[in-house]
C-alpha cells in the first residue's frame, strides 16, 4: 500500500514533466532554415518598437528596415548616397525639391511604389498624435507642427512618379538625409481608412527593398527570416538567398555562436573578447572607424565652468587626457582617438582642422591653463563624469577621470547612474550636477548631422546648452550653401570654433569591430557599422 503511493507520486511527477516537456518541444522543431543553401545568418536584436520605419531609431530594428525597404537613396560602404527607388532628386534653391521615382516598382505584396506611397508615409510619420519616434525628421517640411496635428502641405504629388517637397528653410543636405529609414515609402495596405499606419503593419511589415520577410518569418525574441526579393531592381544586388537575423540578448552569446559556427556574421565583438578576438578569428575580423562620436559634456552651468575660466578649464581637461593610451589599454584599439567633431566615415571628415591640438595629450600645457583659471577663481570641489552604468562605460570614465586627476591634481571620478532612462532624464531636465558622457551615432552620413543637433543654440541634443552666435550663423550658412562641398566649408569653420569653446570634450570614434565565419565571403561594413548584407556570399 505504502509502496504504491510512492510509485504514484513518482509516476505523477514523471508524467507531469513529460507532458510539459513534450508539449513545449513540439512547437519548436519546424525551423531548419539556418544552414539552408545560401542563407546568411547574422546577429541582431528584437526591435524595440513595431517595424514602422518612422518609429524605429535603434539599430536592432533599423537593420531589418534597411534590408527590407528601398528608400529614395541608399548609402554605399563609404556613406555616399546612391539613388535607389528614385530616378532623380533635383533642386535649384535647396528649398523646393522635385523627386522623380523609377517607374514600375512594386512592394512585395504587389502595391505600386508611387508618389503616394512616399507622401502618405511621410504624412503619417509627421502627424503629431501618431507620436512616431522620428517625427522630428520632418520638421523642416512646410506644414509640420510639433505640438498638434497638422497637414504636411509641403508635400505635393505631381503625378504617379513625381512629387515635390517644399522646405521651410533652405537645406543643402536634405538629399543626404533621404536614405534614412524615416523616409521609406509604405504600401497602400499599411494605412487604415484615416490614413494612419496600422499597428498590425508594424507586426507584419511589407517593403520594397532587396529582401522581404519570409512567411511567418518573424519569431519574436528569436529571429527574423528574410528572403531575396526578386522584384527589387535597385543597386543593392543581393548575392545570397536570404538573411536569418538572429536576436541576441547578450553579445557574449552571439560571439560564442560565431566561434561555434552557428552564426556567419557578427557586427560587434563583446568587450570581454577584445583581447583575443584576432587570435580566435584568424583573418576573419574587421576593425575600422564607424560613424559614432563619443565625448563628454561639461555644461556651462557647473561651478567654475562658465566664461573665460570655464574655457581655460575645459581646454586643460581635454589636454590632460591621454586618448591613445586609453583606446589602446581599455578598448584594445577598438576606438580611434577623435581629431574632429564627426567621424572618418562621414562626408566632410577632416583631420587637419585648425585648433584640434586641444585633443592631444599635453600635461604641461594643461597644468599651465589650469593655473591660469585658478588665478581667475580658485578651483574647489570635485570633478565628476556621469554615465549610465547599464552601458559598459565605467572603464573609460574611470580612466579619463584618472588622467585628469593625475595631471591636474584635482579630485576627479566617474559618477554612475544606474539606468539609461534615469541618466537621460537628469540630462534632459538639466538636474545633473556633473559633467556627463555624450555621444552621437550618425543617422545619415552628413557632417551637419554631427553638428546641428548637438551644438546649435537650443537644438534637440544640445544638452550642455551651448550657445555661440558665430557657430549658429556658420551652421545656417552651411545649410543654405549651394552644394555639399560649399556647405562643408562653412561647417569646418564652425568646427574650428568648437575646438576653442569645447562644448563637449571629444574622446574617440567607436570602431565597427566585426567577425565572420569560414562559410561566408565578401563581408564589408557599411558607414553605420552594419554589414552590407546584400554583398555577402556563402561559400
Amino acid at each position: 500500500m505504502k509502496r504504491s503511493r510512492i510509485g504514484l507520486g513518482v509516476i505523477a511527477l514523471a508524467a507531469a514533466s513529460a507532458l510539459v516537456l513534450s508539449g513545449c518541444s513540439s512547437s519548436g522543431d519546424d525551423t531548419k532554415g539556418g544552414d539552408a543553401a545560401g542563407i546568411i545568418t547574422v546577429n541582431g536584436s528584437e526591435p524595440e518598437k513595431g517595424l514602422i520605419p518612422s518609429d524605429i531609431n535603434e539599430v536592432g530594428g533599423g537593420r531589418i528596415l534597411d534590408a527590407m525597404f528601398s528608400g529614395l537613396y541608399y548609402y554605399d560602404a563609404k556613406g555616399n548616397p546612391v539613388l535607389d527607388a528614385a530616378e532623380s532628386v533635383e533642386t535649384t534653391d535647396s528649398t523646393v525639391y522635385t523627386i522623380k521615382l523609377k517607374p514600375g516598382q512594386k512592394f512585395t505584396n504587389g502595391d505600386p511604389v508611387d508618389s503616394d506611397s512616399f507622401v502618405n508615409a511621410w504624412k503619417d510619420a509627421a502627424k503629431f498624435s501618431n507620436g512616431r519616434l522620428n517625427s522630428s525628421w520632418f520638421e523642416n517640411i512646410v506644414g509640420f507642427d510639433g505640438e498638434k496635428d497638422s497637414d504636411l502641405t509641403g508635400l505635393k504629388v505631381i503625378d504617379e512618379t513625381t512629387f515635390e517637397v517644399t522646405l521651410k528653410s533652405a537645406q543643402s543636405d536634405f538629399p543626404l538625409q533621404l536614405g534614412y529609414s524615416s523616409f521609406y515609402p509604405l504600401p497602400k495596405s499599411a494605412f487604415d481608412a484615416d490614413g494612419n499606419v496600422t499597428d498590425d503593419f508594424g507586426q507584419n511589415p511589407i517593403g520594397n527593398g532587396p529582401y522581404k520577410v519570409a512567411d511567418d518569418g518573424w519569431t519574436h525574441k528569436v529571429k527574423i527570416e528574410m528572403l531575396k526579393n526578386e522584384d527589387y531592381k535597385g543597386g543593392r544586388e543581393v548575392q545570397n538567398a536570404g538573411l536569418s537575423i538572429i536576436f541576441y540578448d547578450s553579445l557574449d552569446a552571439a560571439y560564442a555562436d560565431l566561434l561555434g559556427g552557428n552564426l556567419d556574421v557578427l557586427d560587434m565583438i563583446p568587450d570581454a573578447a577584445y583581447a583575443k578576438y584576432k587570435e580566435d578569428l584568424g583573418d576573419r575580423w574587421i576593425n575600422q572607424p564607424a560613424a559614432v562620436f563619443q565625448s563628454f559634456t561639461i555644461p556651462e552651468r557647473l561651478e567654475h565652468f562658465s566664461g573665460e575660466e570655464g574655457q581655460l578649464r575645459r581646454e586643460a581637461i581635454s589636454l590632460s587626457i591621454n586618448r591613445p593610451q586609453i583606446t589602446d589599454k581599455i578598448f584594445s584599439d577598438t576606438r580611434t582617438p577623435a581629431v574632429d567633431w564627426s567621424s572618418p566615415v562621414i562626408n566632410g571628415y577632416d583631420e587637419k582642422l585648425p585648433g584640434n591640438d586641444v585633443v592631444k595629450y599635453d600635461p604641461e600645457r594643461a597644468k599651465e591653463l589650469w593655473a591660469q583659471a585658478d588665478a581667475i577663481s580658485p578651483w574647489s570641489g570635485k570633478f565628476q563624469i556621469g554615465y549610465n552604468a547599464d552601458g559598459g562605460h565605467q572603464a573609460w570614465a574611470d580612466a579619463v577621470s584618472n588622467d585628469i586627476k593625475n595631471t591636474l591634481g584635482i579630485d576627479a571620478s566617474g559618477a554612475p547612474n544606474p539606468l539609461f532612462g534615469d541618466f537621460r532624464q537628469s540630462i534632459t531636465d538639466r538636474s545633473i550636477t556633473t559633467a556627463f558622457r555624450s555621444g552621437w551615432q550618425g543617422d545619415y552620413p552628413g557632417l551637419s548631422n554631427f553638428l546641428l543637433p548637438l551644438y546649435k543654440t537650443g537644438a534637440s541634443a544640445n544638452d550642455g546648452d551651448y550657445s555661440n552666435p558665430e557657430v549658429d550663423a556658420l551652421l545656417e550658412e552651411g545649410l543654405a550653401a549651394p552644394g555639399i562641398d560649399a556647405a562643408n566649408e562653412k561647417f569646418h569653420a564652425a568646427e574650428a570654433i568648437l575646438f576653442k569653446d569645447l562644448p563637449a570634450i571629444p574622446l574617440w570614434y567607436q570602431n565597427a569591430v566585426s567577425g565572420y565565419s569560414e562559410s561566408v565571403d565578401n563581408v564589408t561594413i557599411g558607414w553605420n557599422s552594419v554589414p552590407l548584407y546584400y554583398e555577402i556570399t556563402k561559400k
Partner: protein
Amino acid sequence: MLRYILFRILQVIPVLLGTTFLIYFMVFSMPGDPILALFGDKTPSQAVLEEISRQYNLDKPFIVQYFLYLGGIFTGDLGITFSGQQVTDVLARTFPVTIQLALMAIVIELVLAVTIGLISGLRKGKLFDNVSLIIGLVMMSVPIFVIAFIAQYFLSIKWGFFRTTVGPGAPIQDLILPAIVLGVSLYATSMRLTRASVIDTLNQDFVRTAYAKGLSRNRIIPVHVLRNSLIPTITNTATNFGVLMVGATVTEAIFNVPGVGNTLFKAIRLGENSTVVSFVTVMVLIYLFVNLFIDLLYAVLDPRIRYA
C-alpha cells in the same frame, strides 16, 4: 485534504492583489522616463514625449494605471509592449521555454543530489563521501556564469557536443546544456541535505528495528531510509524551482534562451510596466502552486503529515 487544497487556492487571490500592487508601485517609482530612454541620446520635444506617454498610459497617476491594468486582466488584456505585441503573447511564448528549462534542470539536480547524497550518507567519512563533499563545495562557490562559460567553451565550441546557444524554437536538445549548467550549480545544497538526513535516519530506532526484523538492506534503504530523508530535499527543490524561474537570467543570456529571465530583464530596463507586472504575477502563481504541490507530496512521503 480537499478543504485544505481549496483554502490554499483561495489564498492566491489576496497574494496576487498584493504582489501586483507592490510590483506596479515599484516599477512606477523607478527613476527615469522610459519613453525618454526610447529616444537614445536624442531628446524629443516635450509635446511629443507627452503624446507618447499618453498612448502607454504612463502620464496617468500610479493608482489609475494600476486599476486600468487590473481592469484589463479581467478582459484578458494585459496591455501591449513598446514593440506593439500583446503581453499575453509574450507570456505564452517565453514561459513554456523557461518552465521546460527549469524542469530539466530540476530533474538533473534531483538525480545528482539524491544519488550522490544517498551514497555519501551511507558511506559517511569514506573516500566517496569526502570527494563528493569537496566537489559540492566547489560547485556551490563557483558563480553560475563561470560554470556556464566553461561548459559552453569546452562542451560546445571546442568539442562540439552541443549547439553553442539555443536555436530557434528552443528544441529540447539545445536546452540540455543550459539545464546541466543550472542543475549542476544547484545540486550541492540538495545533496548535502539528502546526505545529512540519510545519516540522521540511519540512526533512527525504526531503521534499527527494521534490521532487527531481518529485512534486507535492499528494502530498508529505499523504502525506510531514502523515503524518510527526502522531505528537506523536496522542500529545497521547490524553492529552487522558484529561483530558476527568475534566477536563470544569467544562464538564459549566455545561451540566448528566449525565456522569462531575459524578457523580464529587458522589460525592467525599458520600464514596460505591464510586461514586468504580468511576468511577476505569473511567477508568483507558479511559486504558489509549486509550493502547494510540494505540500501535497509531503503527505505521500510521510503519512504522519496530514492536513485536516
